[in-house]
């Protein structure tokens, strides 16, 4: 999904995650958003915001034990990162760890708000490959906000653009 800045991409994701009051109807399979408690909905439909937040001092505090042990090497971290202090992480590193933090919850749907915004070109492509592999293997439905047409072409099955108050389909995907 793409759109000019300020067009409401993030707000749409927040509404799907049920963080923003809205009048729409959202469902995951047969389960409507309002049919289950909000925190259960959000642990199945997990959103990764553009700037991830870290509230404990140590990186490891944000991950359950299995997620700490299973940290994929494709993300470019050694296992010691779990002992690091959060202030040591660069914004790109936070971004990658936030994706793993979300995936470790084993969600059924992911809402990604510009997940590669803080990465250089090489890391972006490496991250895309890893992320697409995880998404396909786990069969997760993904709503991915991006602005780079090349990236949209590489990752999207369908491409929608926000136009005013409507979403219109663009043939940029494959």
């Amino acid at each position: 999904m793409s759109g000019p800045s300020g067009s409401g991409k993030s707000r749409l994701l927040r509404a799907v995650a049920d963080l923003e009051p809205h009048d729409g109807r959202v469902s995951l399979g047969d389960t409507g958003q309002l049919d289950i408690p909000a925190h259960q909905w959000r642990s199945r439909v997990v959103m990764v915001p553009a700037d991830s937040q870290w509230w404990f001092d140590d990186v490891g505090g944000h991950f359950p034990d299995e997620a700490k042990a299973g940290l994929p090497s494709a993300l470019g971290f050694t296992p010691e990162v779990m002992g690091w202090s959060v202030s040591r992480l660069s914004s790109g590193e936070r971004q990658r760890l936030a994706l793993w933090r979300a995936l470790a919850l084993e969600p059924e749907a992911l809402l990604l708000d510009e997940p590669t915004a803080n990465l250089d070109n090489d890391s972006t492509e490496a991250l895309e490959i890893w992320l697409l592999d995880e998404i396909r293997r786990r069969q997760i439905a993904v709503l991915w906000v991006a602005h780079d047409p090349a990236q949209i072409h590489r990752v999207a099955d369908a491409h929608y653009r926000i136009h005013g108050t409507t979403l219109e389909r663009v043939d940029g995907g494959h």
Partner: protein
Amino acid sequence: MEVIDLAWWKLGLAALLVLALAGTGYLARLGITRSLLIAALRTIIQLALIGLVLEALFASSEFYWIALLALIMLLVAGREVVARQGRRLRGWWAFSIGTGAMFVSSFAVTVLALAVVIGPEPWYAPQYAIPLLGMMLGNTMTGVSLALDRLNESVWRQRAVIENRLMLGQTSQQALEDIRRDAMRSGMMPSINAMAAAGIVSLPGMMTGQILAGSPPAVAVKYQILVMLIITVGTGFGSLMAVSWGGRRLFDERERLRLDRLVKP
């Protein structure tokens, strides 16, 4: 032992000292002269009036007059709690939550202390009930307003963290956990500090007053211990209720963070 009554003209001597301070402040351009004089005047008028009220109240000892005074004290304390919060809940929520928490905690603890611990006849005897309730409300008010102020301010500053925690499937209570703990701590800190310093660094005002009025220090000390313990209990439960109700009101039924419910006056 008879208490030495103070003649009004002797209080005038103390007032002259305040005037001297105000004059010095004016000459030195400290910019506090005006507020100093107004505050001193308010103290004299307010205390003189409450003296008259208490004289009348002690003479009648009717339950409904005591209840009325207690209600007025509670409402004024509730207003003060609202005024002391930098960001507060919209509408009547700020007042209701603060006043409700103070009512439940200070009235319950005061009634318990009166009926069970001290046991005057009748239990609401104004000589005991009004001073005790006043001390309870004054301290609970400080605790509740500090706790609510901290809660609202932290939620406002840390909204991104709270929302990110919600995005990861945490309940609103889990996402607020650290902030609630901080808010509770700032509400309780003054009473804990007061208990720790009592008798060594500071001689508490109530005990000092009782000794001046001729009570044996051993009795005054027992009353002071009672008062400090119940003040801490009242402040603690009051802050706990205020933080828990306030924290709940910051989220809606879908556990969304609703900062639009906070206003900055």
